[in-house]
């Protein structure tokens, strides 16, 4: 994952900047970024599972199964990313990974903001556990069609990540002048 992120970053810089436009300062920043991202502090180097990438997230809500596409980015143990929940909207994503344990927070900025907090464990290309709702409620048992919060569960399954595949499909190499080029 670290390699992928480094590649993406470097590739982006090169795509948007010609060699003649790169200043010495910019070049130093680029090198520093590469060093940081390949350091032991980066994801995958702290014994935490690597969850970066695309996931299909689903959870048992009041009236049925809610679903959406989760795109996670991981730096060390910290998670950021995006979530496409259709009409539910696109909440702000944050979270942490500690070993195989994950906590993921989705902040929905709808008419009435609310926050879902997912906790669980990672098992390869799957993860899951329980979630709760902060801000307001979770329990709702009036018509029996839904469970109490203690029964709320979620799962996520890793999806093919086109962005990642594309990046891997375009390896880079150092050129004669030290710059990297996209092949």
């Amino acid at each position, binding site marked *: 994952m670290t390699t992928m992120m480094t590649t993406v970053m470097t590739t982006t810089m090169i795509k948007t900047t010609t060699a003649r436009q790169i200043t010495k300062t910019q070049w130093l920043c680029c090198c520093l970024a590469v060093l940081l991202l390949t350091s032991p502090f980066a994801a995958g180097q702290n014994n935490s599972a690597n969850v970066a990438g695309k996931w299909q997230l689903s959870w048992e809500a009041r*009236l049925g199964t809610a679903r959406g596409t989760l795109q996670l980015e991981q730096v060390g143990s910290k998670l950021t990313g995006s979530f496409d929940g259709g009409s539910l909207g696109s909440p702000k994503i944050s979270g942490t990974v500690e070993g195989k344990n994950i906590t993921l927070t989705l902040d929905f900025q709808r008419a009435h903001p*609310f926050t879902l907090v997912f906790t669980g464990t990672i098992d390869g290309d799957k993860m899951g556990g329980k979630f709760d709702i902060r801000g307001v409620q*979770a329990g*709702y048992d009036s*018509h029996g069609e839904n469970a109490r919060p203690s029964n709320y569960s979620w799962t996520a399954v890793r999806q093919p990540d086109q962005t990642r595949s594309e990046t891997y499909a375009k390896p880079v190499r150092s050129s004669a002048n030290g710059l990297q080029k996209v092949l």
Partner: protein
Amino acid sequence: MSLPSFLAKARQHAAVGVSLFALIVNLGAPAPAVAQNAPITPIQHVIVIIGENRTFDHVYGTFVPKRGQTVSNLLSRRIVTIEGAPGLNYGLSAQNSATDSGVFEISPGSKSAYTNIPAPETASAPTAASDSDPAPFVTLSLAKLAEPDLFPPYNKYLLTGATGLAHNIPDTRIPNVNTLGSGVFQLTSATLPYDSYAASPVHRFYQMWQQTDCSAATATSSNPSGCLNDLFPWVEVTIGAGSNGNPPPSPLNTGEGSTSMAFFNVAHGDAPLFRQLAEQYTISDNFHQSVEGGTGANHIMFGYADALPYSDGNGNLATPPTNQVEDPDPQTGTNNYYDQDGYSGGSYSNCNDITQPGVPAVVNYLQSLNPPISPNCAPNAYYLLNNYNPGYVGNGTLDSVYTQFTIPPTSQKHIGDSLSAAGVSWTYFGEGWDLYVSDPSGADPYDRYCAICNPFQYATDIMTVPTQREAHIQDTTYLYEDLVDGSLPAVSIVKPSGFTDGHPSSSKLDLFEGFVKNILVKLQANPTLAASTAVFITFDEGGGYYDSGYIQPLDFFGDGTRIPLVIVSPFSTGGIVNHSYADHVSIIKFIERNWGLGPITARSRDNYPNPTTSASNPYVPTNSPAIDDLFDAFTFPTTAARN
């Protein structure tokens, strides 16, 4: 009128096929000729407000009518005193345990009277106020944001009433909880005020058939259905809300105890708005839930005057998955713990097939009555008897995407079709609809819209046509605008959210009072509109609470226990108590008669005649099956047409 409201109104008229001229009329412009059925009474608008889960005796058990009026309730029958203590005839409410370990029976044997009913428990009633798991809430501003439909003085009740007790234990707020006697008990006391959350009793189809304990062998002239209403706690503690196909847990504790036997004391301060309305307007003491059981099937019966069968979604009958078919036969080695029944289990029955589990007990009983009652079950039709989600979500896509416990879409005709064909405007106003449309799975915790309560959300002809959806299903915010500007549809069906519907455990009766009050205040602030509007305030069902009233079997599906009905209009004043036998479909019959509509289908319940009764007993129809159209609950000017 705001722009969105104007657009909604425009869609409403376009959808019912009325001309642009009719829209102009509704906006107050000069009125050209309108091709729509005119009402035959001064009632030009009907508003039906449907709360949740209270029987007549539970709310009005100690109601004292004005001089010259009579009422049949716990007090008048001397089951309790006006203080709520046991009365001379307390034994009429006495409950029994029983034994059912073979096949499902609606009147099982080996009955044994309880000395003391099992202690009422807390079930899932909220332990404490919490903004992360309300209601009740801790923060008023948050509560008002989540629930904007209360008359403002009632907002404070969004913060109060938690039990202070753990779930599924005896509710020790009730004095002498372990020695309550054999029958009904007053729920409220110094330690359990009216403004309290409490447990919700079971209210499912086969369970309620057992609780009411009906048998031709116990029929009398004053109680020709032979329903004894004496197995309420036993069903609560032996099966509760169902097995979902699982074996019984050990130990078995449904968490309810005898919650069903509780009543409010309206003579001593409980349900003050319901008391005031009863004293000022007209109530019925013979109005019934139309289906034995719960929310979904009763709202369906209201919309279709019939039950809905499982189908392929294209109008063809089909067989549901095995684990969705009801099997209330007791599991081997248990006393009444059903094989397959529950909110994520059995909910359909093919009641035309006498070999199906549960069916013979009900059908044989109906056939044993004098005169026999037809089950009215079509061949090969698996009818939905309990709560499953409707066929569609708010944007018209299939609900089965979100949950397997969904009845496929229906093409069965409903009251909306009758109204639209006659050019009569109508709208279902569901609180929280707008939020729900963007949140079909209910992931948004503020989304307490009741999907199973909307009869039209099951219907293909409404849900798959955007103009129909937008015209006929709207948020209550539009109702409030309509009340202000006078653009109310002829027929409005209003459903509160889960916070305010009055359902025990998840809501409180005072919150439903606050929801009702909000509408009445807005209506009465528009005198022109109020002069031509009748408001029917009722409940979807009795919620599994005990009631002492007569039950008339109409078909396989019901009726069930009595529920409150209050009729607020200028033509139903004076504190009258109407005794005519009625149920949810009676409101449909009122609408049909007022606007000159025929029955919905050839087999729907609105085909039943108005009751005839003997001089000595106004409660029991002598021409059963019969349900009233409620015209006799009004006093119209003599110049008004009376068909």
